[in-house]
């Protein structure tokens, strides 16, 4: 459930600036419905990972990958898919860390425990 909500919110956040709007999305989602730390992290990581991968491919496929191939050379990466992976992992980490923060914040203010 948390995963799905982060996924949807991250998609929506992509239409707003700045780029770290995804962090707010993951944080808020976990704040409200995060259950465990592990679940929060992987939901945040997975949600943003998938959103960033999809959005990147959405732009890059009709481009025949010409830009991503050039930028991969700029970063000295042997293949453009590695750049896609780096993109997705960075997005995932931002999402995961934010979700954990959201979850921990929830625990900190919650009366149960």
């Amino acid at each position, binding site marked *: 459930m948390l995963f799905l909500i982060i996924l949807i919110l991250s998609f929506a956040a992509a239409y707003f600036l700045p*780029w*770290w709007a995804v962090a707010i999305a993951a944080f808020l989602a976990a704040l409200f419905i995060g259950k465990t730390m592990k679940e929060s992290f992987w939901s945040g990581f997975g949600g943003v990972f998938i959103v960033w991968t999809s959005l990147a491919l959405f732009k890059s496929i009709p481009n025949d990958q*010409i*830009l*991503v191939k050039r930028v991969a050379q*700029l970063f000295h990466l042997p293949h453009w898919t590695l750049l896609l992976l780096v*993109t997705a992992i960075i997005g995932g980490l931002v999402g995961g860390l934010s979700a954990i*923060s959201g979850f*921990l914040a929830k625990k*900190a203010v919650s009366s149960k425990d």
Partner: protein
Amino acid sequence: MKFLKAFLSIAITLIFIWALNTKFGDIPPLGKFLSPAVGFWQNAESKHSNAAENLLLDGLQAKVTIQYDEHRIPHIFAENDHDLYYSQGYITARDRLWQMDIQTRSASGRLAEIAGRKALDIDRYHRRMGMVYGAENTVRGMMKDPLIKMVAEAYTDGVNNYIHHLSKRDYPIEFKLLDYAPEDWKPINCAFLLKLMSETLAGGSDQFAMTNNLKHFGAKDVNDLFPDYPFHEDPIIPVGTKWDFKPLPTPKPSAGFIAQMTDSIKPKERVPGIGSNNWAISGSKSATGYPILANDPHLNLTFPSIWYQIQMSSPTVNVYGVSLPGAPCVVIGFNQKISWGVTNVDADVLDWYQVRFKDNTRNEYWYSNKWNKVNKRIEVIKIRGQKPLYDTVLYTHHGPVVYDSNSQRPKDQENIPTGNALRWVAHDESDEFMTFYLLNRGKDYADYRKALTYFTAPAQNFIFADSDNDIALTPNGKIPLKFKDQGKFIMDGSDPANDWHGWIPYDQIPTVKNPPRGFVSSANQSPTDQTYPYYINWQFGSYDRAKRINDLLTVMQKATVDSLRIMQTDDYSMRAQDVLPTLIKDLDSSKLSKNQLEVLQIAKKWDKHFAANSIGASIFNTWWQKFYEMTWGDEFENKNMLLNYPSIDRTEQLLIKEPNSKWFDDIRTPVRETGADIVLRSFIATTDELHHKYGNPGKKWQWGQVRKVYINHLANIPGFGSGNFESGGNSSLINALRGGNGPSWRMVVQMGPQVKGYGVFPGGESGNPGSFYYADMFKTWKDGQLNELLFLKSANENSDRIKTILILNKAK
């Protein structure tokens, strides 16, 4: 505890996001840059483009139709001139915004604002040599002219309209990499582009090194080695052309025409071989009976290209050609009636004057037997992440003192004399855009001549052909009136006799129209023979390209566009023709080993073409370079003093005419060498080097393998350039491709009732590495082919080459 955990987690997350949002050194802010929502992925253009696009723009006066052809070259049709230049600004910005930004930043000494301290030296150089001062003067000249004021302001408004509606995710990728934002365009930026051209083409000098030469070798040797007219020459204005004017009296040389030296003093070095070709044949030589004009300016080759192709049409004009991104009008091109092009003149329009200050306050300087006030101009240089630098530049009536002292001068500027004031024509008020505005609308020879009178700098050999069967060529620009050799060396700034004495009148500038030989041409060689009454410079580009062009054109009959296109990629070496027979004759082959004799055999059989698969070219090129270095290196390579090497031309003369010259003696050896000794020694060194690097003669020895050619991104970003490729050509050949420099635009125009243009530049119209039009013309250029240029007569003309249409509507 749970609060601490939450706090720590949030803190770590925030720091992580902050780090991903921050630029570290050359690493872009990774989160921002990689985010598909705003980062570089957004710059990936789709191959599915809309066939039609409508935009509403405020500032327009009426509707503008822009048709894009298969190379995404825009063809603008506007209902008035304001809208024409407005939309030129708008669509140029759409394709080339970052290039426009970085070039004007570079010219105006504002790179450190985005690149930090590492760009400070280059910024200071541009400020201190008066680029901003010159651009301010030029924009003042532009704004005095109501027509050009309208043009520049409309262009500026168009650019700004584009910038104001640009969202961050659509910023050109380089802004994202360097993490900064586009800023408003200003008319002075158009002037900065002219200053940049002047810096490239007329901003170098070797007066400091020449002055050192004089001190080190004395006048006799310097006069012998640095003559005022070359050994081999074939001037632009055909030899024997009569000068039908009464020249102004030539100024008298000053008493002490060479200044004393203060200390080891070097401006931007004069780069030999910078140049371009143009030629035009008259109807008598062409298959159609109408003139054909060809031009290929040699400049640094970059992605994006320095040029932007465009067709511009309004009720007053319909012109096709290349423009400079950031400047209005077409610079090289054609219309229904005329075509024109340019090569560099290399007139001496940059001089250094030694300044004597009264005291350490440097408030006054000695000139004309009295103390005069020094003007101080404060340049504020902003530096990213640091406090701004306030740099005071001293100005005498000559111009800025570029470096006050040696400690102020960076190491890579050692050819700039310190404590000397710079007099440079690019500092003067000017109105060059009027030349292009008029040429764009020109109908005949008279219009061409009138347009040229507005041009100041950098002086260009303007070639011309029209459909009335006139051809012409004029080495044109504001050229100072000087005594002979004035400015060959640094001058005493206190003597008014050393000042520039006005200008060569425009109607006395060398020009040729319809010469009997049936063609005109220029390739940066001497503008005239020695009968021309005025001094322009003591040195010009070597004659090699010009001579080859003239040899080919002399015998050409019934020429077509294709004949001239093939000529543009000609790689025959005039230098090899001039010196190789002597090198071979003087080479004592009895002293050669079997391996060396094999190499000599290849050189003997070589056809003198620098083709990509030629082995002879690699051998000759290495041999000649070594011969040159061995001849002069012992005398001119000096750790303590910057000296100017003699020219290639003088070296050829020495080899052919003076084999026993003292200059062949290697002063580092006890024996006395002759020319033949240096020929042998340089040949053996050549074979040693080639064998060592490439094994036995074979594919690896081929010119295309030995010599690297490439086109880099304008900011040298890895992956954004062409990479190395194999090609023929070399400097001093018509196909003057070397390193990252060469024919930046090749154009051939057939005049006649139906003018037909052909052209190509290495690159593409788009400056976006994520566009299909970033480098789509590169292969055509590399293969020596030209594209037929689509010259539409009206917005209604149908062409199946038009792929998309952009309509700009006036916003209500």
